């Protein structure tokens, strides 16, 4: 597997009042061409920061990439110039954001906004860009695209706007599409449509997708591989089937158990919604030399408080960072 995008030992530090905190702590993962990889974790785990780091958009100050490398097809993006990065953004790597309601510029029509990206990166004329914008709106299944390009964002619904965002992101046929919780702000009925769309258009444009989410349901639906993050660290990685059926890290197990099931939930064995007790540690605790999940873990041991968990390679494709891995035979009650 030759990696298209390769993140190696990435550490991003934020300067806070309490000192320097690594919001991303020694993170490594590879993304193969055309693959869909999911970054999973609760809010504040560093998922969005990872996306911004790849885009070269870490807010600085207070953020700073302390070490590591991010290479796209062999080119280290962390050493690229700002001019080069501007050419990469939107063209080779593009991003879809969580809030479609506020991610479009309200004073320009959607056609102008798709066209602007095209003209910027592909050097198209206004006329060519317009034709291609219509094509893109058609590809994201917006009805009557030739009329819709003259609409302003406020004239469209949330789902429509997210389609426009996807059209903008994919217009230049990027190699990598980063989708940062693309369906969190949408109705459940629309979520599935957007996922279908991303899969279809992603396949057509041969874009690899990084899906950032906290919802294991979305992961099951979309992803091929999963990277589970907790407090800035990668704690488990593997193929989606392995992760969902045989999670080895207690946190992954907790995440999966948290997905509500309408009918099965109402049973004697599982009467309540599952939850992981506690919450993600504050930024000031990041970088702690033990396991950051220890305070919330039901399998915690003395060692967990003392040393950072080593990554155990379970199978060639699955690895987890835990001192007390779950037994592979124990299936999740999901």
């Amino acid at each position, binding site marked *: 597997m030759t990696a298209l995008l390769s993140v190696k030992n990435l550490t991003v530090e934020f300067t806070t009042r309490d000192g320097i905190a690594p919001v991303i702590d020694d993170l490594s993962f590879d993304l193969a061409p055309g693959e869909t990889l999911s970054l999973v974790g609760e809010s504040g785990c560093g998922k969005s920061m990872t996306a911004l780091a790849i885009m070269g958009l870490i807010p600085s100050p207070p953020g700073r990439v302390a070490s590591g490398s991010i290479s796209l097809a062999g080119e280290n993006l962390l050493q690229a110039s700002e001019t080069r990065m501007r050419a990469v*953004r939107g063209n080779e790597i593009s991003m879809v954001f969580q809030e479609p309601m506020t*991610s479009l510029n*309200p004073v320009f029509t959607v056609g102008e906004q798709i066209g602007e990206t095209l003209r*910027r990166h592909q050097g198209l004329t206004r006329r060519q860009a317009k034709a291609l914008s219509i094509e893109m709106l058609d590809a994201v299944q917006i009805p*009557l695209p030739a009329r819709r390009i003259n609409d302003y964002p*406020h004239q469209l619904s949330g789902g429509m706007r997210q389609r426009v965002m996807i059209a903008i*992101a994919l217009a230049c046929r990027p190699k990598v599409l980063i989708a940062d919780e693309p369906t969190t702000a949408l109705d459940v009925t629309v979520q599935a449509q957007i996922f279908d769309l991303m899969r279809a258009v992603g396949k057509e444009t041969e874009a690899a997708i990084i899906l950032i989410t906290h919802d294991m349901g979305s992961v099951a639906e979309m992803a091929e591989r999963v990277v589970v993050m907790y407090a800035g660290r990668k704690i488990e990685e593997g193929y989606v089937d392995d992760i969902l059926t045989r999670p080895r890290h207690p946190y992954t197990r907790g995440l999966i158990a948290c997905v509500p099931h309408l009918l099965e939930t109402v049973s004697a064995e599982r009467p309540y919604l599952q939850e992981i007790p506690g919450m993600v540690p504050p930024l000031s605790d990041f970088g702690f030399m033990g396991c950051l999940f220890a305070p919330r873990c039901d399998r915690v041991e003395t060692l967990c408080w003392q040393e950072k968990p080593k990554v155990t390679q379970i199978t060639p494709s699955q690895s987890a960072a835990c001192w007390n891995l779950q037994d592979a035979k124990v299936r999740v009650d999901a």
Partner: protein
Amino acid sequence: MTDYSIQERSLQPTSARVEHPLIETARMFAGNRAALSGLAMLFIIVVVSLAGPWFYPTDPFEMVWSPFSPPGAKGFLLGTDYLGRDLLAQIIHGGRATLAVGCAAALLSVFIGITFGALSGFYRGWIEETLMRITEFFQVLPTLLFSMVLVALFGASLGMITFAIGIVSWTGVARITRAEFLKIRELEYVTAARSSGASNTNLIFRVILPNSLPPIIVQAALLIGFAILFEAGLSFLGLSDANVMSWGAIMGNNRPYILLHGFTIMYPGLAIFLTVLSISLIGDGLNDALNPKLRNR
């Protein structure tokens, strides 16, 4: 265009089509009676100032009759000034310079204000510190005194007067622009634009500035009124271009006789009053029409 299939029609938004924001603003403005009358008033004033001199060609500098003839005497509708010059001709001819100075000075201050506000709001850091200190310097400056010094030093030409007014009145625009930039730069669509490869210039001019225009437009409209008043004030103190007739200059010329022949000051004053009033009404109307929070009260 009208004949969609049922399927296509059902995909249309069910509610009435949303209007273009500009049309919506225009509709709001048109529903505001005060603003409309202001617009009508200003329109008449502008037309009279621009076209009037052709229809009333009496030279405003020519002495046509005895000084201080009361209004109506010998066919001079508004009478004559202290040199026996036709007051009506002066007001008609003076409108051009007054409006020109007002608009040019407002344009200058909007330009400086947007530049300062945009740069400091976008780049933050030391740029903001520096530019905001300069802004504060101009805020605490006694504006009239500073303008008077400028005009006294460099000569009372129309250009210099315009510059002197523009240079002291931009601080409000700078602060408003900066505030809008600070607010908008954190919004998601700015990050989204950045992530699609937009350059800083692009972000400033295509993304943030267009979205911060409404309050700036209102401020700019009010600035024109302010500049006209300021010009009148300078002229009243004698700092006017002697070769150009303006409303302020008429008042300045007749200032010594204000108690005996008040009409010579009252008429140009009335012209200034009506102009500034109409601009203020328009500014208020724009403010209501552009500010969504005040809509549909």
